């Protein structure tokens, strides 16, 4: 007898209850607090904020907990929440030159005004499992050096020194309000502002792979890290009732400016070009990758050759960098496709039987 092969409400409820139980894990262990995730898994939290496009460490921690640590699932939860929030307006552009930096490195100059600040970094650590963390999680605390916590003076951008001499292309301020890809459908070809917006929320792994491909010769653009800086910046908003902008909060961002291969000709003096990356939180791999991909996508305006490289193809990059779009569509192939498959099955059977519509007609 035919039993329902089609799933139903009870099956879904049971599956979700199972998920809840497996998320909790053995009940003899203490439950994971979202404050612990927020404060002790900070880099996971900033990735979820960056790709979720919502700066809220508490919600990101909740999403990570709810997603059992699956960061793309967590990003998805944040995006779905973000989209329901009312939009009061836009801030004025943040001033990264006024950043309170906790990390700031330049690969192009040994020293620069403001100095090199390593900050909290995995760079130069030996990647050896530290079993002390497994034992008790407590490390011998060494007092932080004096002055490490705050860096009150504004640190000028390294690239501004190059710019003063005309050695690098000018990045003139543009007063055109950028398009908002969460409010208007993406229109291709996209301008640089829109491309950067898409890259900023793009998947870190995807951008990493693309950036890497440019380094390996698929649209190579000879990137130097002019400057990478991480720190807190003020967010200010114009309040129409007041007639001026006030600070409404602070966010942590990572900014990467690359100095790239120069352009020039007999008539135009040689100049370095720029790539740019800016992301929420401490997400420097992402910011670096974004800057390299940004630079690769600028080939047309800089009069470079189309090498047919993936990182040069803005339709390819922008259509595939969003991991929420990608994972949804990828995973939808788990949904039933009986009807389409049935149609294909009949077609293949008919073709195999040599009974095409055409021949039936003739017969």
């Amino acid at each position, binding site marked *: 007898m035919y039993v329902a092969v089609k799933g139903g409400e009870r099956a879904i409820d049971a599956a979700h209850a199972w998920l809840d139980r497996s998320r909790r894990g053995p009940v003899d262990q203490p439950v994971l607090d979202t404050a612990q995730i927020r404060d002790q898994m900070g880099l996971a939290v900033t990735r979820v904020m960056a790709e979720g496009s919502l700066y809220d460490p508490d919600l990101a921690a909740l999403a990570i907990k709810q997603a059992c640590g699956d960061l793309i699932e967590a990003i998805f939860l944040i995006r779905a929440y973000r989209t329901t929030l009312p939009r009061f307006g836009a801030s004025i552009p943040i001033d990264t030159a006024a950043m309170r930096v906790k990390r700031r490195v330049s690969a192009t100059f040994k020293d620069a005004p403001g100095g090199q600040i390593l900050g909290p970094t995995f760079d130069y650590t030996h990647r050896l499992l530290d079993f002390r963390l497994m034992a008790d999680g407590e490390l011998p605390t060494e007092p932080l050096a004096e002055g490490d916590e705050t860096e009150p003076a504004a640190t000028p951008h390294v690239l501004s020194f190059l710019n003063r001499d005309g050695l690098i292309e000018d990045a003139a301020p543009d007063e055109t309000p950028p398009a908002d890809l969460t409010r208007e459908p993406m229109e291709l070809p996209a301008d640089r502002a829109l491309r950067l917006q898409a890259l900023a929320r793009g998947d870190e792994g995807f951008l990493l792979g693309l950036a890497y491909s440019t380094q390996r010769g698929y649209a190579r653009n000879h990137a130097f890290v002019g400057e990478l800086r991480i720190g807190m910046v003020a967010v200010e908003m114009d309040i129409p009732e007041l007639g001026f902008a006030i600070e409404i909060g602070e966010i942590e961002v990572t900014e990467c400016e690359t100095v790239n291969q120069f352009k020039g000709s007999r008539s135009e003096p040689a100049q370095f070009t720029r790539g740019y990356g800016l992301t929420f939180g401490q997400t420097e791999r992402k910011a670096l990758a974004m800057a390299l991909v940004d630079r690769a996508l600028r080939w047309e305006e800089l009069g470079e050759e189309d090498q047919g490289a993936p990182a040069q193809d803005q339709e390819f990059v922008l259509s595939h960098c969003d991991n929420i779009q990608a994972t*949804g569509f990828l995973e939808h192939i788990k949904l039933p496709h009986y009807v389409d498959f049935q149609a294909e099955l009949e077609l293949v059977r008919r073709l195999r039987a040599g009974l095409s519509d055409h021949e039936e007609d003739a017969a």
Partner: protein
Amino acid sequence: MSDQAYNFAYLDEDTKRMIRRAILKGIAVPGYQVPFASREMPMPYGWGTGGVQVTAAVMTPEDVLKVIDQGADDTTNAVSIRKFFQRTAGVATTERTSEATMIQTRHRIPETPLTSDQILVYQVPIPEPMRFLEPRETETRRIHALADYGLMQVRLYEDIARHGEIATSYAYPVEVAGRYVMDPSPIPKFDNPKLDDCPAIQLFGAGREQRIYALPPYTHVRSLDFEDHPFRATKADHACAICGSASSYLDEVITDDAGGRMFVCSDTDYCAQNAKGGA
């Protein structure tokens, strides 16, 4: 978060207005893909976000909603979407095609003929009928603008040259009102004739691809073909093992390890009504 934290049918009213504008434009230009600023939804892209946004944008508290996937009301994704609207909009739901004012569907058109007071909302994965012939959006837009559809006909020609017939069995391309070539979503080509001259409003939502398109009531929809290889709606050559219908689209069900199989209606409501003698 309580459900009171969300607006009626989840989306805020500004978003709904934006989507309704896109729908109205789609109805004004049948078959044309209208770009819209698709929102992130609490279900994944590819699982019906476009359909859900369209449904949410046109839904009123008095609506009676039916949701089907593969023709059935009890498939997992249909259950999930129906629950979503029960929870966020509190509207009445039904499994009866004839009682519904709005039907959201994935991959099928109900067997029971639709009426002029119904809206059928399709979930669309890839709205661009030319996509697998031409991957570039900038180029496909030009193709539609110039109605330069020779390439699609070449694809059908190649099918016949290779297989003796047009080897497209679902998502079979159609020409709408003599102008735009449109992807009817992955419905089996068996359902294509139901698109034509349909009294109901048919709306198509593609969330990930940010496109909405529409067929106003009684629009002429022609499946592409050749004069000497006319389009033909096909299905398994059986009758339903439950209701006995010989004219409805059938699912093939494997019944045992020895390869035994039976054929049953894909449209569960039609099958149940037919078995009762009511359809």
